[in-house]
């Protein structure tokens, strides 16, 4: 365990995740984890370190590499009264299980006339930056934001991971909880004990007056770095970390835009058809008269994710790219 200079406890992003799971499992005997390598191995990214050791094989279940059946296991268990956490090792694999997630888990309650309760948490790791190439690096959150009936969470820091994960497990609806692989080792102050951060509530992670940067996941962390760079140039950027993409807290975004009059949306996924387009559209619907510049977008180009670090580093938008996007939004003269 580490502490800050002021004695506050810090955990890494992944430790915060594991701690949330353990605390929820201690509090609620219906919570269990299942997935590939989550038990004895503790997850390939250590996301479930020590869970089986503490709770045993009954509650920390190693499954075959069968993504559809992993999700189906969760749905069937959830609808009959348990509170499953089922894991898909890489976010890219959600596509293998797409039917069970999108056609079954997300729709079951509505199709059944609202009767059913599906308290299912699907956990996975997204994001590029490990030279994992095109099938192990994607951020596919936009796909699931397009499916009514499942909530989508993509946290940017350890504190949020713990609180949002606890809320996801306690949530009576299906949730897709995405961890960013490059954030796993990043430390932050994390209180001990249980706490939740409500789903669907964004966080103004840096207040500012000149331009709003809307983001989530690792890009929201990078946006804070970008804001620091901008501050050195005398630009006071406000960073809105959405934390939950669906449901979307557009009110917090609009409130910020009304103050700054300039906004960019930054995310790691492909720009074309990305979730940034939805955010941008809602901003212009709700705050058009407040805008002094078009809503900018900083995101990945239209290609699969390359393997070689030489290209991957150019592919993923970094803090410099986000700062450049913010400068562009400021370049246009105000009203």
């Amino acid at each position: 365990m580490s502490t800050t200079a002021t004695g506050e406890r810090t955990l890494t992003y992944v430790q915060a995740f594991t701690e949330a799971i353990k605390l929820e499992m201690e509090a609620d005997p219906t919570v269990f984890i299942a997935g590939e390598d989550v038990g004895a191995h503790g997850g390939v990214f250590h996301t479930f370190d020590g869970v089986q050791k503490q709770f045993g094989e009954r509650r920390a279940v190693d499954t075959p590499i069968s993504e559809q059946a992993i999700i189906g296991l969760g749905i069937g268990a959830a609808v009959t009264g348990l509170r499953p956490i089922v894991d898909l090792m890489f976010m890219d694999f959600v596509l293998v299980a797409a039917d069970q997630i999108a056609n079954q888990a997300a729709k079951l309650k509505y199709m059944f006339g609202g009767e059913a309760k599906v308290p299912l948490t699907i956990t996975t790791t997204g994001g590029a930056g490990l030279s994992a190439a095109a099938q192990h690096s994607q951020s596919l959150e936009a796909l699931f934001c397009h499916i009514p009936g499942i909530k989508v969470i993509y946290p940017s820091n350890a504190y949020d991971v713990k609180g949002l994960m606890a809320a996801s497990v306690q949530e009576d609806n299906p949730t897709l909880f995405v961890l960013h692989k490059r954030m796993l080792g990043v430390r932050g102050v994390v209180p001990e004990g249980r706490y939740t951060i409500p789903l669907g509530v964004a966080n103004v992670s840096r207040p500012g007056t000149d331009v709003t940067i809307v983001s989530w996941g690792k890009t929201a962390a990078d946006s804070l770095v970008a804001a620091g760079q901008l501050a050195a140039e005398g630009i006071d950027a406000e960073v809105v970390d959405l934390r939950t993409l669906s449901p979307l807290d557009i009110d917090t975004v609009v409130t910020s835009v009304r103050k700054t009059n300039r906004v960019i949306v930054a995310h790691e996924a492909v720009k074309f058809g990305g979730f940034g387009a939805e955010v941008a559209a809602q901003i212009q619907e709700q705050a058009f008269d407040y805008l002094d510049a078009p809503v900018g977008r900083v995101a990945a180009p239209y290609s699969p994710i390359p393997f070689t670090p030489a290209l991957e580093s150019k592919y993923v938008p970094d803090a410099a790219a986000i700062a450049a996007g913010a400068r562009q939004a400021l370049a246009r003269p105000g009203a």
Partner: protein
Amino acid sequence: MDLTRDQHLAMHRSMVRIRLFEEAAGKLMEQGKMPGFLHLYVGQEAVAVGVCEALRVDDQITSTHRGHGHLVAKGGDLSRMMAELMGKATGYCGGKGGSMHINDLSLGMLGANGIVGAGVPIAVGAGFRNKYVGSDQVAVAFFGDASTNIGAFHEAANMACALHLPVVFICEHNKYGEYTPTDKAMVIADVVDRAAGYGMPGVIVDGMDVLAVHEAASEAIARARRGEGPALVEAKTYRFYNHHGIQTLGVKYRPDEEVLAWKERDPIFTFEKHVIDGGIATREDLDEIWNAVRAAIDAAIAFADESPFPDESQLLAGVFTEMAR
């Protein structure tokens, strides 16, 4: 297997309920009173009934696009079913699911399903829950022969065996995947051959014989209940109507002789002969059942007819469970 007279009559009643419900639904569709798709279970009644008579109310089942029979056999309410098929507010899903999503969670009927094979992993999840809470409840997955060519089935069958769950797999082999003969879709004649690949026992049973289905299912279910793991029962059966609706399509895909030969083996009529010949019940007893069910179906149709369509306020209701803050 020794069954009481009441059990025989219960099975007969359940099969007749399915038959008359489905034929009524088919006619209503032809009259334009039934929106959407309608996959009738007529001909396959012995499978749902033989299996569900071996289940307890608290056992779970998952079903298919051809799912009405499973819900009826599990004890479903005919009026709420008919209302759902008509899209009415009083239906099982408040009119928002329809034929392919009909369910009754209080009866452990975890839903018909519009996606071939997709209910099978969900049954595995219910079986997982049963084992997790230390219950002797059993989960049963109903699926067709064509489902066994889809990945979800294989993943689910393997996982149920790997985790040693109380799940019973009931394959309704009706010889056609929609309009394509099964022998064009797989080179093995018997789905049961696949059971060995997952390390579970499998048995073939005459799916037109409700007693045979009941016996085989009872054994598989009892085994699962004892904690001895999954098993597969393949019931050879036939649907008397089309993949969808009642009318034949312009394109003929099944030889007349084949359809007639299977209809000769009608699961209800052959069972009636057995019951009467065996002195278990009289023709009059059985006619009484038919008449009572006819009246129940008429009442179900009247209930559905008189029920309102859901209010527009229901359009966005039920996407999520509201969370207390």
